[in-house]
């Protein structure tokens, strides 16, 4: 207790210098907290936009499907797996999909198209596809009175084929049984825009797709992909790992969005590392200030350290005293930093900063930079400030611990 008292009083000894150091450290904490909040908030926002655009948080495929997609690599009896997934508390929705690269024909023109079979309701609950309908009505499950199934067509494909809502679209592909798949669909909606993911896609109902490609339906339903939306994107890795264990013997692979969209994730990680550089610069500047204070404080007190050692304080006791002072200084700085930064971070998380020029990310307008308040945002600056303070205090503390008591007593 007396050692702690001594540490506190030593900090208060030169109040102005300690206050300036505390403000510098607290300011560093504030900047770190703010940078992290903005960075994590923005990435979290982008991840949400990205995963809800079409990927989902977790996907299930047949083994090796992601590396080499194939019509034949199907998830069989998908309904049973969907039922099992929907029993998980963290699962909000599951969207089954079938992919079939096809040739799209309309008004004397043909273009390659990615035809995707979806369950309209499940897809609407999992991704933003429904909100991307620019013209017409969102996809329905059944066929119309004439027996034609409806289709939604991507903006660019529709433009290339000169098709619009109400027109007929002919799709030609290969069925899973080796037969030639061809059918006529009625366009009920145009989706996305020239830059969106859906621009060259055609969406038809899962039932229509299974019929089109001669795939199994009902209890034996075959699909290529199950996209899963979780209650929070942060749970993706753990959920995928847990589900993989449950589906161990099924030749299915459960992978989080970080693996499914690895190029996006890797570029995001690289971008994050860039922001860590700026945080490193903040820490460096703050650390120099702290080093100055601790160094000055120990130099001024060399004689006192000599007295402490002369009366029997071990070198380690002197070392720990200086480290304790630095630790106390760091804790106070963190409290100051937290008091300053928490209200700002909460405001950023709730209101955000409007962007002068909104960014269009695949058809989704990104117009506000949102912050985030989380344990990570608060704890990382705390750990960084404490560790960097202790690190820069190490050298002055070692110097004071090692100095001969006689030399220290002779210091002016």
């Amino acid at each position: 207790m007396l050692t702690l008292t001594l540490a506190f009083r030593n900090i208060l000894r030169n109040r102005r210098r300690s206050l300036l150091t505390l403000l510098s450290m607290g300011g560093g904490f504030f900047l770190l907290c703010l940078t992290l909040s903005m960075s994590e908030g923005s990435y979290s926002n982008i991840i949400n936009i990205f995963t809800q655009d079409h990927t989902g948080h977790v996907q299930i495929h047949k083994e090796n499907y992601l590396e080499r997609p194939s019509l034949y690599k199907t998830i069989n009896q998908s309904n049973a797996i969907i039922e099992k997934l929907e029993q998980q508390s963290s699962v909000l929705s599951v969207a089954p999909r079938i992919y079939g690269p096809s040739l799209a024909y309309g008004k004397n023109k043909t273009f390659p198209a990615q035809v995707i079979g979806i369950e309209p309701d499940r897809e609407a609950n999992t991704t933003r596809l429904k909100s991307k309908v620019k013209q017409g009505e969102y996809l329905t499950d059944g066929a119309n009175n004439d027996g034609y199934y409806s289709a939604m067509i991507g903006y660019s494909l529709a433009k290339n084929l000169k098709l619009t809502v109400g027109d007929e679209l002919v799709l030609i592909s290969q069925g899973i049984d080796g037969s030639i798949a061809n059918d006529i669909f009625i366009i009920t909606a145009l989706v996305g825009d020239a830059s969106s993911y859906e621009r060259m896609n055609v969406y038809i109902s899962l039932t229509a797709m299974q019929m089109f490609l001669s795939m199994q339906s009902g209890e034996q339903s075959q699909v290529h992909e199950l996209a899963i939306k979780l209650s929070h994107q942060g749970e993706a890795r753990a959920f995928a790992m847990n589900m993989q264990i449950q589906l161990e013997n099924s030749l299915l692979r459960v992978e989080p969005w970080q693996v499914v969209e690895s190029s996006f994730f890797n570029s995001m990680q690289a971008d994050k590392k860039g922001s860590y550089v700026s945080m490193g610069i903040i820490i460096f500047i703050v650390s120099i200030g702290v080093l100055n204070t601790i160094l000055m404080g120990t130099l001024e007190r060399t004689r006192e350290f000599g007295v402490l050692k002369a009366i029997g304080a071990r070198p380690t006791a002197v070392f720990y005293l200086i480290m304790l002072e630095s630790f106390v200084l760091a804790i106070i700085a963190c409290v100051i930093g937290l008091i300053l930064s928490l209200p700002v971070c909460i405001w950023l998380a709730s209101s955000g900063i409007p962007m002068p020029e909104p960014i269009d990310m695949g058809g989704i307008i990104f117009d506000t930079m949102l912050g985030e308040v989380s344990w990570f945002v608060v704890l990382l600056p705390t750990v960084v400030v404490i560790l960097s303070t202790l690190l820069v205090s190490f050298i002055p503390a070692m110097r004071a611990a090692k100095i001969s008591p006689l030399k220290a007593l002779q210091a002016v």
Partner: protein
Amino acid sequence: MTITTQTDTAHKVINMTTKSEETVIETKQLCREFGQGDTLVKALSDANITIERGEFTAIIGPSGSGKSTLLQLIGGLDNPSSGDVFLDKKNISHMTGTELSDFRRDHIGFIFQAYNLIPVLSARENIEYIMLLQGVSASERKKRVDMLMHAVGLEGLGDRRPAELSGGQQQRVAVARAMVSKPSIILADEPTANLDSKTGADLLDMMKDLNEQQNMTFVFSTHDPKIMERARRIIRLVDGCVVDDERKA
């Protein structure tokens, strides 16, 4: 008691008899040199000194005679160039830094010329700190601090910081701090040099009383005639050599 001194020209052996039975300090062929080659300075040469428990000894000599060096070597603050220092029959000359710290904490009390109190601690806390290093219980610490505050005449001033005390009062706190760990010996380097003569005399009387009442061993390094008057033994150093050892009746 036997004092052996060696000068450049001759050996001089002074034999004395003492009533003390227990040796606290014994130095054997103690040397301390600074610098090397042409700049070599022999601060202390072959000093053989024995001090018994309860002595009130003054080491005197002109400036640069090696008084402080001898005190620093006895106190384990400095390492000898050659020779040995035995304190409570333990050779402290080859101890490591931590061993010396522990030894100083438990066996030696220091009183410095410039008081050297910790400015951010109160008088009580300055006295208490060394016991904290020794791991003495809180109740025992309080008891000993109260007793010593009374013994050095500083009752009621315990909560004052050093800056709020006079020089004499600060030196009394330093005396209490030196005594609180119940050391085998108290080494005082010019303890009265910064005090006016009356305050210095009062302080010395107090230390003399403590020496007589508690059989505490005091060794002074000094120029002060007041200490020489009160000392029962005076060791004279010249150019790093013990040239005289006088015991008063």
